């Protein structure tokens, strides 16, 4: 089971690295917003796996809070992009 958690956490971290490359390279602002949103989702995934491997419920509470804040941040970014073009 420890190997499973190690593989899962490594894969999720690698996916976050790929999303970060898109944040750096992204030609337009919506590309970067999408990649940052994906990084927030991957952080929630990492916290869920961490909570499963340690059996600590506080990780899941943190995951709920990060999911909430990530949604609000994405909507705020989208409003900003829209206003920039109008």
């Amino acid at each position: 089971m420890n190997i499973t958690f190690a593989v899962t956490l490594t894969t999720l971290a690698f996916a976050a690295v790929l999303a970060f490359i898109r944040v750096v390279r992204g030609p337009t602002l919506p590309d970067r917003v999408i990649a940052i949103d994906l990084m927030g989702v991957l952080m929630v995934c990492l916290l869920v796996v961490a909570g499963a491997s340690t059996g600590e419920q506080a990780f899941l509470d943190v995951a709920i809070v990060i999911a909430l804040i990530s949604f609000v941040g994405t909507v705020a970014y989208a409003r900003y992009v829209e206003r920039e073009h109008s």
Partner: protein
Amino acid sequence: MTDWLSGILFILGAALALLAGVGVLRMPDVFTRMQASTKASTLGLGCLLVGLAIQHPEGSFVVRAASIAAFMMLTSAVAAHVIARAAALGGAPLWQGTLIDERPSETPARDDVSDQ
């Protein structure tokens, strides 16, 4: 048995998240990248949460997992719609092979995306 099942679900969720990362990096324009990234928030996180609920079948874990799943299913659709609307109104360039562009014609369309 439950260890095997939850382990398989964890690996599956991580693989879907990795696919979303590869898709966001490799897809040619904003809208295709978005459809790749929303897979991670629904299917990948869903697999991880089901694995968590199978591994820890106590009430407090299951309630938290179900609330995270319900919240992400609700908000990822709204967030993807809002970003797509902003990108479309801002005249984001489409991939060269796009067949239908239903946006008003004053926005620049079908520009070649330089960064693939």
